[in-house]
């Protein structure tokens, strides 16, 4: 097994390449994915290897990218569509929620749409308007889709291959601000029969509080756990990976031990994933809860301009504040002099 140190974008690139080598029904399509290799270079070099029909630069029309991918899936292909930025997925919304999500059930199981929809998402890179959205909850509320998010290179590599191999349509959210972070990736691992993408993973073990995060916030959550450690607070950090369906078995097992849950995400609070996780966990282990689940999230505002994003995206301090609240230590942040 060869291991390489790759950035997350290179890891996804390697996963795409591997999937295309393994299965010639895999095709990649999107705006600027070919010659340019994508604005984040995630598809770099693929067109040179696989030609301009398996790696298709498409006209500038997101609904058509998704709609034609459906037709390609009908024709036996496994399209991987890139939506250039989170904020550009909405023109394709109808094709995703009315077509991609419903085709299998509409046709009573006769049509499968093994599509992967890659979406760079979230803020933290100082981008212009519409380049920092976190629209995942719109898709997790839509039945018929699977939604995953990755948080590091190794995971990104494993999960992109699983997403492409899945016979269900999968939205694959890539946290933009983690593209350039490096990590070791086991490159030629044969996919495990137990799919990573179906399972949340405990990225830091702990006993006092369960902290659930995904995508770009996993790293922040780990940093928060490390900081809390120094004060004797033991945080268990769970990286959800699958946002739909959520691996509640894993989350509940943790909360039953800790009795306290904090959920962090960048998306707005109202109706975000935190709401579902809080509600579902409360239903499943009400009597184990020592405190109401706490949500640390983006505010209920459109994603703000770059100079304000640091206040909107939950950071270490805001997550620790959430941890304090779930522990009924409302002022400890202040005590620490932070």
């Amino acid at each position: 097994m060869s291991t390489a140190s790759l950035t997350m974008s290179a890891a996804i690139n390697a996963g795409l390449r591997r999937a295309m080598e393994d299965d010639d029904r895999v095709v990649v399509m999107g705006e600027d994915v070919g010659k340019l290799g994508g604005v984040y270079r995630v598809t770099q070099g693929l067109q040179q290897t696989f030609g301009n029909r398996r790696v298709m630069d498409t006209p500038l029309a997101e609904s058509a990218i998704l709609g034609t991918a459906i037709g390609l899936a009908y024709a036996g292909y496994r399209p991987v569509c890139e939506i250039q930025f989170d904020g550009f997925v909405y023109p394709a919304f109808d094709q995703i929620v009315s077509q991609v999500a419903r085709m299998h059930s509409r046709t009573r199981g006769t049509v499968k749409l093994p599509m992967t929809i890659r979406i760079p998402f979230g803020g933290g890179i100082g981008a212009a308007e519409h380049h920092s959205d976190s629209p995942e909850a719109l898709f997790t509320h839509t039945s018929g889709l699977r939604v995953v998010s990755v948080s590091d290179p190794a995971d990104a590599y494993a999960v992109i291959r699983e997403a492409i191999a899945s016979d269900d349509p999968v939205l694959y959210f890539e946290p933009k601000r983690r593209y350039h972070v490096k990590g070791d990736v086991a490159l030629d691992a044969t996919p495990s029969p137990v799919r990573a993408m179906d399972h949340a993973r405990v990225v830091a073990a702990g006993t006092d509080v369960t902290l659930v995060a995904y995508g770009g916030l996993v790293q922040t959550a780990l940093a928060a756990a490390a900081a809390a450690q120094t004060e004797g607070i033991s945080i268990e950090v769970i990286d959800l990976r699958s946002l739909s369906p959520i691996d509640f078995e894993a989350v509940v097992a943790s909360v039953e031990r800790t009795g306290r849950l904090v959920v962090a995400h960048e998306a707005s609070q109202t109706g975000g994933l935190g709401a579902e996780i809080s509600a579902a966990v409360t239903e499943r282990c009400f009597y184990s809860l020592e405190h109401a689940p706490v949500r640390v999230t983006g505010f209920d505002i459109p994603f703000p301009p770059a100079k304000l994003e640091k206040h909107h995206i939950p950071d270490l301090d805001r997550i620790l504040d959430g941890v304090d609240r779930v522990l009924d230590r409302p002022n400890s942040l202040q005590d620490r002099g932070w």
Partner: protein
Amino acid sequence: MTADLLEAAPGISPFVSLLGPDGHRDETGEFAHLVADIGSAELMALYRDMVIVRRIDTEATALQRQGELGLWPPLLGQEAAQIGSARALAPDDFVFPSYRDNGVAWVRGVAPVDLLVAWRGVAQSGWDPFVFRVATPQVIIGAQTLHATGYALGMQLSHSDAVAVTYFGDGATSEGDVSEALVFAASYAAPVVFFCQNNQWAISEPVRLQSRTAIVDRASGFGIPGIQVDGNDVLAVMAVTRSALARARRGEGPTFIEAVTYRMGPHTTADDPTRYRPPAELVEWTAKDPLTRVAAHLRGIGILDPAAEARIAADADAVAAELRAGCLAMEDPPSESLFDHVYVEPHPRIDEQRSAHEAYLRMLS
């Protein structure tokens, strides 16, 4: 200031016609050679198709009136457009239709009763698309044109010479998806035929609200050749469809066909066209009925005698009787089937909800 503009009719380009309302067949026109093989027997078969799909339509409308179907969208008046085009297809071609294209489904071999499944509400669709190479009817206006374009890209990738054909209405041409489909099809020279049935109305909206120029003109601006055809002329429709299919198979890319026809009935059984449609219009178009002219022609050449008429009518009645029996025999799906086929692969939340629902049902019973 623009009330007058809103009333003006779109310019009508010259269009392909081979069998006029009087039943006269043009055997020399530009497109005539494309249907030279359609002799009297073949024309008789086309006529039979049209009679049968009209009969299916009548029966389904009756079933709806009797409360057996939730809704039905009649194709009355569009038989030639659908039969003429669908009979031009090769078995390997793949159709992406809308909800009104029952005639197309009939030609592809879909059992008529399977057309009713969705309207009776027992399932969202009635057949396996891969068996008949016709997708289940699309309700979201225009969405299927993109699926067809994508399928055509797939055929290119596979070096297949199958063509994708998509059916949609005049109203659909206003949806962004249809324009985007034209962009993609043109860009990749995809083997897809855009078959627009301009039946003059989108529910209560006349075609002039969707376009100030002939619908067929839309295509050229995308670099796609357009052909306007008398949509009530089964031969002309077949000829232009064959020409478009041949072009696609030669690798020359997409063609847009505007079949000029008329929705003689309501939009659906829930609609009352007298609220918005001038009665004179129906009279005018009844004179161009797609069946009448074929019958006139066949009578003129002496092969549609009363006995033949009766045979066809009997065939149609048999289809209708089977349709009715099949409809009434359809069973309601069990409530557990709610959870079927939402996903291909196992899904814990679905499993959980299915179990909870089953427990709930056990408790109730």
